[in-house]
């Protein structure tokens, strides 16, 4: 099963670093800003399902949203990244959620990642606020650190589980709300709370 994941978020929150750390386990202290979209594949196992994650990295600045749909139009999941030391970056997450819901609809699975947790002492984004927001939009929330390789596996696993569940439901001609798979990661309770009706056409990659 091929699943497309997009990394979205303001500039310099660490999208590229997350990508490199997660896929290649590499980290560069001095990363140049990203303009070119790039994507990398990773095979993972979600329960009994073999899934190939295609993770897309994009430019962060809002103006590049003019190109945005190219990246996320047929995405199964989005990882919205913010920087816990930068409150501005969290407001961008809200914008992204709105935009995704508007353009892609409710089908896209969203996970929010608070990156740079290694800089906890400089935290500017309040945890309560984030959790409340994540709950209100039906997204899971994780803390990550690309630098110290914290939380990334969990984060992507959660997203993958959600996406697999949704895809299965889709293939089974499922209706909204039935998307709890049997073979999900045992510790994760997957709640498909997107609520809206499913697209009948296949939106995901082949």
């Amino acid at each position, binding site marked *: 099963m091929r699943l497309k994941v997009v990394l979205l978020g303001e500039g310099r929150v660490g999208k590229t670093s997350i990508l490199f750390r997660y896929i290649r386990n590499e980290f560069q202290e001095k990363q140049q800003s990203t303009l070119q979209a790039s994507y990398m594949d990773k095979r993972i196992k979600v329960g009994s399902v073999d899934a190939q994650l295609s993770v897309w990295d994009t430019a962060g600045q809002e*103006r590049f949203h003019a190109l945005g749909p*190219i990246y996320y139009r047929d995405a199964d999941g989005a990882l919205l990244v913010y920087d816990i030391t930068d409150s501005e970056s969290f407001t961008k997450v809200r914008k992204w959620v709105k935009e995704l819901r508007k353009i892609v609809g409710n089908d896209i699975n969203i996970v929010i990642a608070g990156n740079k947790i290694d800089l906890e002492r400089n935290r500017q984004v309040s945890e309560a606020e984030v959790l409340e927001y994540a709950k209100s939009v039906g997204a899971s929330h994780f803390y990550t650190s690309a630098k110290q390789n914290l939380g990334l596996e969990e984060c992507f696993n959660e997203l993958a589980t959600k996406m697999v569940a949704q895809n299965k439901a889709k293939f089974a001609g499922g209706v909204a709300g039935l998307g709890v798979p049997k073979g999900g990661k045992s510790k994760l309770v997957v709640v498909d709370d997107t609520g809206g009706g499913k697209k009948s056409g296949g939106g995901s990659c082949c």
Partner: protein
Amino acid sequence: MTDSREDPWGWPISEFVGEGEQGENNGSPSREVAGSGEPKVAGVLRSLSPISLARFGGTDTVSASAWEAFVSARKSSENQIGDAGSEVWYKFLASSCDSAALSLVMRKGLPQCERRKVWLEWGVDERTSDESWKALMGDVDKVMGTGGEEKKEGMVDKDTLHTIEVDLLRTMPDHPYFSSSGGHGFAALKKILLAVALKAPEVGYLQGMNFLGAFMLLTFKFGRDEENDADLEKDVFDCLKSVTTTLLKGYYAPGLTQLLGDTEMLRQLVSKTDPELHLHLSEMGFDLTLVCPQWFVCNFVTSAKMDVVARIWDLLMFAGKGGRGESGGVMAWVGLAMLGAVREKLMETTSMCRVITEIRKFTMEGVKDVDSDLWKRAGLSVHSFFDAGRIREEVVKMGNGGKKRGWDGEGGGESDEPIRQRPSMLSRANSFGSSFATPMTKKRRTATENFARRNGISRDQPEGRFLFEPAEESKVGLVDKAESFFKFAAELMTPTPSKPKRKFGTSLSSKIRSGSILFGENNSFNNEEAKPSTKKFSKSVSFGAPPSPKEMVAMPPPPPSSESTFLSPNSKGFEMTPVKTKSRPSTGKKKKKQRTAGTPHPSQGIRQTHFFTSPEMSRGGGRAGFMSPEDKLIMSPLAEMR
């Protein structure tokens, strides 16, 4: 002292030192201290030995006296940086260059120490005065002091400031000059970016402009004493502002309209010059929109070595001279050359991931060498597009302090006209294309005759005329622009019958067209020991086995019901409006082109070709360049192919 070649952003020594001339440069005033701290060489005009000359065009095409003059000009300017050196250099260009010598210079790039002056002259219409620069710096200081305002007229808003600050930390982070802890360039770049954001609020700041500014800083400070270079920041500001607001208008402003348009242009170029590659990329699900933003927004700064980038910028600036607005064309052509250079690898790819990786790898590692295949390709396309004669006129005019000057020899009459009122390069390219308007059975004429005849056509036969008037240049529809590019490419593809050797000068155009001006008729390039890549290149440098014009004419028109969309220039200029194929409105009075699926009129020849409505192109409905919001979701044929 470390070898500068290890510094990815430094200027490689080898490029600036003439063979056996290193010794002479000792102690010359033009030592450059790059950020890494090592002195650079003084040999600023790149060395062109007769050997490399032969390689690039054949000594026989350059008169002995021109060569002498070139060599002496180079020698003098090596030791006289600044105005005196420029003087000599211009003098050379103005007095003794014939087209071949000049095209040689263009192919080798401008001398590094002259770039600042020449770029500012070519690319910037209005220089900022010292007073207004001072005032502007005051405003910039205010912005930095207050930390940005809420959105307000005449100020930089918080968001922009934040983005700039964040990006500065990620601009060539390994380069000492841009080090966040006290790097000279770091502070300068911040001021410059803020100044542009203040002065050009319609552009503000777009990620990528940081790289442009950084590149210009490095280029402009080359060979100069930084301490006493008070104008450095101002000059970079002028240049950056001009690039973002004029030369590449619409690349940086919200919507990125022209950026998408030129991406579309490149797509058309690829699909027409190399359908095989185009098809393969489409099958992989690859879309140029994935790489073009990086290439175009940064003007290749992040995608090639500095000296290659500088060469591209020479052309960019030249193309933008006097508000001609052809710079986007340079981007597309260079993009085509890049794809061409990595073509073989791309054809082997089996997934989109590999395509992106290959391109990335190539742009990060491959584009180092100005003499590489890439440059030959880009040189062929860009350079011949510009028309060597025109370059000559421009440089001569410039070297003469802007005064007009007669040109002894061919073309002298032309230069009486003010430059800006003459047909643009683009319409020249168009005029190349319009020679296809006559039936192919006609005997091919020489390039010179062709030009006269084409001009005749443009006066007398409305349907044979160019797609737009020079005055209307700025409103040219992108599709037309792309089309004219393609026509020119088609011209390039058409093999010209070999002719007896002519006296230099008259056969230039035909040489350009046949590619021989770039590679020489008997030069080392084609005959070089057949490295596979070279061989491949020499084959596809004229864009693959050229489809005969007849084949092109025979390209099937789309079904009438085709829903393909077009970018139509509307009254506001470049707005993207999807329109149905059949009801494409046109602003130009002379756009008589038929785009419906009728039978081709025999006399129109290749102009009947439905460049933009072939079934392959129209399948996807919308394309990045001209999507309606609804279309965005089902963009590009790729979605359907999957």
